């Protein structure tokens, strides 16, 4: 697969599609995107397109059917009296729920079968000592992403948020769009789907702004993430050869790698979208400035969080069962806990799914539940911590130190989560954690830093400087300053020279080629 930071993707897949897209009349621009997306998907999967094709067909048919049910009701509405209307409405609602239920189940079943079948087999084997053979089904590229988009589209059609599209090509484009199919962002039809269908005219300013974002994304991926990966990947495999401090650095560098890579690739795809006049949803908003893990997840992989909130949390917590539970809790608990109790059940579903979505393994479930436990602890102890702070005279909302303390605490908790996320299993994660605690200062020759990790002194210096640049840009953004706006205000000649210099710098100091091990996109595997 040509990853989004490869020459092939940028020059050929994106470049070719962009040229075609720019040349076609506005009405037909979506065909260029469709051709580019299908070609990219077909080549990347070597023709393994059946799951995406089935999903598209099911979603297309079900959405049209739901639309037809609603249209029939609208048409018949005038001829029905009030009681008949009520009865018909209830019957139609049941019908819509059935169509939605069946089609969404089929779509999700495809995800489960293709992604989790072997995990299920292995779990059964380890639980019951059986020797069932693994399936030979290959996980389709982007299945976790386009399935969520498909379900959201079905739900939005059911709840009247969008009209079902009659053009199957436009729906297919939405689900297979080459900029989002591998790693997201997870888009909604009323946002991206509509934009893709409409197309946009070429605009030089937007093109340049988009290209600047692509370069920044590549910088994060190629200079930072791929360099950090050289250290982190070996440390997670062989931490016992070193000491706790080095293992801790490995965890920190993995966090840096994951953030720089995922957000960098998002910058690349959003930048490419911007070059074509498309606005893709944002996935990151300076997550490491979060004061709590809850806030962290509203700034990290935002489109996944939004999807889970919109399509799991709200439907669950607004369901009749939960309403009843809320009423019962209200009668027995204080208003704060009465609101929290049913929400914590819905939250369990959200975090279980969040973990499970990430991968077929118990460690991913543990990863999701880790955040669930942290959030629940935070929520249930909130009144207590408020009282403690009040007694200690800490002004929680205004104290700068407390603010910094909360950011650092969240950062530490997130890193612990990353350890679980990247370790080769839960047992290994606990081993590594124990190792960090018990062997922190164990004597290790300093030269291993230069011999074991494909990194030399200049690499560590680049890593430090690039991290500083990343922090500086994040601070600017957190203060509401967009560095690209500042950059755009510079004189043309200066911008020209700076961009040229930055592009050459990227090519020269990038961690690719003979001296570095290859680094695959982490989220492309999900």
């Amino acid at each position, binding site marked *: 697969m040509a990853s989004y930071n*490869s020459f092939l993707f940028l020059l050929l897949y994106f470049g070719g599609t962009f040229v075609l897209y720019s040349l076609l009349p506005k009405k037909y621009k979506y065909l260029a995107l469709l051709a580019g997306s299908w070609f990219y998907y077909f080549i990347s999967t070597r023709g393994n397109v059946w799951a995406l094709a089935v999903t598209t067909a099911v979603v297309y048919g079900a959405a049209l059917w739901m639309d037809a049910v609603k249209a029939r009701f609208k048409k018949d509405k005038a001829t029905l009296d009030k009681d008949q209307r009520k009865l018909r409405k209830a019957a139609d609602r049941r019908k819509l729920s059935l169509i939605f239920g069946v089609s969404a189940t089929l779509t999700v079943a495809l995800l489960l079968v293709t992604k989790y079948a072997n995990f299920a087999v292995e779990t059964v084997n380890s639980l019951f000592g059986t020797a069932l053979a693994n399936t030979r089904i290959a996980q389709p590229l982007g299945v976790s992403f386009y399935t969520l988009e498909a379900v959201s589209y079905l739900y939005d059609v059911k709840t009247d948020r969008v009209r079902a599209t009659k053009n199957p090509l436009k729906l297919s484009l939405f689900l297979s769009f080459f900029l989002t199919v591998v790693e997201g962002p997870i888009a909604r039809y009323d946002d991206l789907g509509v934009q893709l269908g409409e197309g946009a005219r070429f605009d030089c300013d937007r093109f340049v702004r988009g290209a600047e974002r692509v370069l920044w994304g590549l910088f994060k991926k190629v200079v930072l993430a791929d360099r950090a990966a050289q250290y982190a990947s070996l440390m997670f495999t062989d931490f016992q050869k070193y000491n706790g401090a080095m293992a801790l650095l490995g965890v920190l560098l993995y966090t840096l790698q994951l953030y720089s890579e995922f957000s960098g690739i998002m910058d690349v795809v959003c930048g490419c979208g911007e070059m074509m006049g498309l606005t893709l949803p944002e996935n990151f908003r300076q997550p490491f400035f979060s004061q709590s893990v809850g806030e962290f997840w509203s700034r990290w992989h935002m489109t996944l969080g939004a999807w889970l909130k919109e399509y799991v949390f709200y439907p669950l917590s607004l369901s009749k069962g939960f309403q009843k539970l809320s009423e019962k809790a209200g009668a027995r608990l204080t208003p704060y806990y009465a609101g929290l109790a049913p929400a914590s059940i819905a939250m369990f579903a959200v975090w279980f799914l969040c973990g499970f979505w990430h991968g077929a393994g118990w460690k991913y479930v543990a990863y999701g539940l880790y955040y669930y436990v942290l959030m629940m602890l935070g929520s249930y102890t909130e009144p207590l911590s408020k009282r403690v702070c009040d007694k200690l005279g800490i002004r929680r909302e205004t104290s700068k130190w407390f603010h910094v303390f909360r950011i650092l605490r969240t950062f530490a908790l997130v890193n612990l989560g990353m350890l679980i996320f990247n370790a080769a299993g839960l047992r290994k994660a606990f081993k590594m954690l124990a190792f960090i605690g018990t062997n922190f200062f164990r004597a290790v020759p300093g030269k291993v830093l230069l011999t074991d990790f494909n990194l030399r002194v*200049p690499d560590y210096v680049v890593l430090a400087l690039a991290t500083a640049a990343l922090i500086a840009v994040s601070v600017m953004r957190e203060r509401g300053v967009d560095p690209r706006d500042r950059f755009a205000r510079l004189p043309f000649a200066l911008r020209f020279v700076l961009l040229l210099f930055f592009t050459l710098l990227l090519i*020269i100091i990038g961690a690719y080629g003979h001296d570095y091990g290859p680094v695959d996109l982490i989220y492309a595997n999900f």
Partner: protein
Amino acid sequence: MDKATIKKQSRGLLRIAAFLLALLAALYALSATVFSHDAAQRRGNNYVRSFSYENEAPGTVEVVFIGNSDAYSGISPAVLWKNCGYPAVVCGAAHQSPLFSEMLLKKLYRTQSPAVVVLEMDMLFDGQGKAVTSQKARCPDGPLQRLYRLMLPERLEYALETELSVIEFHNEWQRYFIGFREPMKNNHGYYFSKRVGKVDEAPNFMAPTEDRACLSADRLGMLKDTVDLCRRHGSEVMLVALPCVKYWTMARHNTVADFAEEYDLPFVDFNSNEYEDLIDNDTCYRDEGNHLNYTGAKRVTAALGERLRETYGDRLTDCRGNEAYAAWDGRRRHK
């Protein structure tokens, strides 16, 4: 669109075009200066061996050996010259892949027209694991397979690397901070080493078997593409496996033999029983059975020279005594 917008967009387009041209010019300028192959050679970068043909005058190379570290350790063009008078180069680097070799050959054919291209076969298995199969190796060659191979991300990457050395040798900037290596001598791509690392216990790695080493369809396809490329340019192709106790196996031999049979190519395996007495495990390797040292290379090159003379004697010219090749006589020795 009104006139003002058209004017603004046209100006923007011109600026974008100017930027792209400036970027391209800068990349070529860097490739020709700080990051050039000459500079990489002066700094002792091993990977520049792949481009050893650039040190030869255009149209003078008769034989090209292409492969990975086995090739640059095991074949000495100077010895071949001394024995047979064939001007040859080794275009190989550590872990050089078949696809890179193909891209490299494409560039080589712009200046050279070798009569024979010898493809070293360990590169085919580099990074492919040790799995075996009972299935005969076949090269899938339908239009879709060709399209997949054409669209491999590495293809464009390698094409750019061979075209713009700033991309391949970009990391040389670090040398300004951590110091330069010893400059590399022009040995026509051969890596000279007298180090001896004897094989402690020689495994029976060539025991007869019907197994074939597993190889991705792409790898075999790449080999076929390379063979086709050479044939299109009028070169004869020979496949060779150099002595390697550590990684070579009979299953690998069988896979290559299947391919050689399918495409009617001569295949010389120096690990086979035919060459049992050629290599002394105590004196001919530099690293315990993986790569040959100079002693091993001399023997293998001599044997390979004979094979080349036998097989392609009518196409190859003994250039010793030819004025145009005077420099070869002067550079016969490695030291």
